[in-house]
């Protein structure tokens, strides 16, 4: 069957290219033939890829606009940092890989629980109202994290809210965030996380549950009349995305020596949304490309110095204008012969 085969080939190519890139980059790291900036960006790129892919699951596949996705990343990041610090201090777990794995799992789980708690009220709303509530939750998470203090004293974990006088080693210092974090995140771990999230998302899309999620997106009333529980499937997409975002956050957090809670704000949520839109809504391989390109781009534009972010903004506007210009779209269609244009812009609802 045509579509099925095409999808299968696209996914296979995606996996293949990623594996290839990983091998090439690892060789380059070992040979020290990689630039220092790029090397430092590898783990963040992995995190942002997972963020973009998971947000695309919510925005593209489930059709709901989420403006607070960075909140889940933040929860995952700080949970990961706390877990790692606690395991080291309280349980003398010296092995960094084990700590990293446990931290990522903890980050994902916590973010998942948050996803469930947030999803229950949020997914009852529609359209722009749903979007604004996700934004609100994102800001609430950021604000609350700014006030949380956590310390580890042996195997006990102490919590403080608005009060920083805690015994033991301070792991999370309110508005100062996390300091002196042991950066145990590795590029290999990042790559594995990327592959994991791809497998989860692509397999989910190509399954009974995925079809239900897309049906709920395409025509809510028809889906209900065909026996699909809309809330259940919107939750499924939302929580899965939250878990993945949490894991991405844990990876990210454990790659930074210091991390402020304000790092995970509306601006970051919007950034990820830009990745998703530019890569193509519903287009998972596209999200990988755009997340990578747009993380590297600001660095590449360093030569513009002060004009860097301005150039970024102008580029963004131009790309949006061009990709939605009917004449450009016609030209594009002519350039790619024989390929059936399956969706017009209007059809993919946000």
């Amino acid at each position, binding site marked *: 069957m045509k579509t099925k085969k095409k999808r299968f080939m696209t996914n296979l190519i995606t996996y293949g290219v990623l594996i290839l890139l990983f091998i090439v980059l690892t060789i380059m790291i070992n040979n020290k033939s990689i630039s220092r900036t790029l090397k430092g960006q590898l783990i963040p790129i992995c995190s942002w890829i997972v963020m973009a892919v998971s947000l695309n699951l919510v925005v593209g596949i489930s059709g709901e606009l989420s403006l607070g996705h960075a909140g889940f990343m933040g929860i995952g990041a700080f949970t990961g940092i706390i877990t790692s610090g606690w395991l080291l201090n309280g349980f003398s777990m010296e092995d960094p890989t084990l700590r990293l794995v446990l931290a990522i799992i903890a980050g994902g789980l916590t973010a998942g629980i948050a996803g469930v708690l947030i999803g229950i009220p949020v997914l009852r*709303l529609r359209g722009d109202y749903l979007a604004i509530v996700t934004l*609100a939750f994102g800001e609430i998470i950021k604000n609350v994290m700014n006030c949380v203090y956590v310390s580890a004293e042996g195997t006990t974990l102490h919590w403080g809210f608005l009060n920083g006088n805690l015994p033991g080693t301070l792991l999370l210092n309110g508005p100062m965030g996390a300091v002196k974090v042991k950066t145990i995140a590795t590029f290999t771990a990042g790559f594995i996380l990327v592959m994991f999230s791809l497998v989860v998302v692509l397999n989910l899309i190509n399954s009974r549950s995925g079809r239900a999620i897309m049906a709920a997106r395409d025509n809510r009333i028809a889906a209900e009349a065909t026996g699909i529980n809309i809330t259940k499937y919107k939750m499924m997409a939302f929580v899965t995305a939250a878990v993945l975002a949490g894991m991405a956050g844990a990876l990210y957090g454990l790659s930074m020596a210091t991390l402020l809670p304000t790092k995970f704000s509306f601006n970051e949520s919007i950034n990820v949304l830009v990745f998703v839109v530019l890569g193509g809504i519903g287009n998972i391989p596209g999200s990988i490309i755009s997340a990578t390109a747009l993380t590297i781009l600001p660095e590449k534009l360093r030569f513009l110095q002060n004009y860097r972010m301005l150039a970024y903004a102008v580029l963004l506007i131009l790309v949006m204008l061009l990709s939605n210009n009917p004449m450009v779209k016609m030209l594009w269609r002519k350039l790619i012969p024989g390929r059936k244009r399956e969706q017009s812009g209007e059809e993919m609802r946000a």
Partner: protein
Amino acid sequence: MVFLSNLVNGISLGSIYAIIALGYTMVYGIAKMLNFAHGDVIMVGAYIVFCATQYWNLSPAVGIPLAMLVCTVLGMTIEKLAYKPLRQATSLAVLITAIGMSYLLQNTALLIWGANPKVFPSPFSMDMIRLFDGQLVIKPETLITIAANIVIMVALTLFINRTRMGKAMRCVSEDRGAAELMGINVNTTISVTFAIGSALAAIAGLLLCSSYPMLQPTTGSMPGIKAFTAAVFGGIGSIPGAMIGGVLLGIIEILGKAYVSTELGDAIVFAVLIIVLLVRPTGLLGKPIREKV
């Protein structure tokens, strides 16, 4: 007395949010888009007043209208350049473009005026207002803000309901296609909407910085988000809704910061919003979305 003082401050802050929210809600109702750059037009307005009074030595009476003019032109230009070409595109595409425009404004301001916060001198050089035998002291800016809000509210309501352009705006917001068929120039209507919204943004910028004198390129960002929240809170597309939403949001924010916790002020505001939307899913004054089956 402390409560009253806080309440007045809350209403004043809420008035600023309301004026900004008006811009959001009008553009949403009529052009069917979320203009994320709106918050940054506020910042531009404030900088123009700042430059006018500090660098070019103009009096505020000239500086303020100048800022309104610049913002109006800016708003209309942004609409013509970036939003009009995307009228047929998905709402998400327009949203991202608006975000890009917001970045553009912020970074341009950064380049022109630098990142260091400027202290904004209040153009209102009056004495403090004392009420209740001096027990309640109110800054003149606070009262002026509230007064400005009331004036704007009245003026705008009259404009929307009594003038031809106002009627055109209402038509376009109901059904753009039908409005066009009835001979209404949709392009002009949308331009006017942006013009009014941007002029209001300039006023909001002035009032914001008069009461909270720190001005930097990111000054418009958070108030913009909060005002957008207020607009949705009141029911997006509804002008009275934007008013009520804005004022309520300001009150909740100040009272929350004063009586619950300063650090959690923002969280409280957003939490209240969420609760309200759960009870009234289309905002306080919003219309329920009806789909024909």
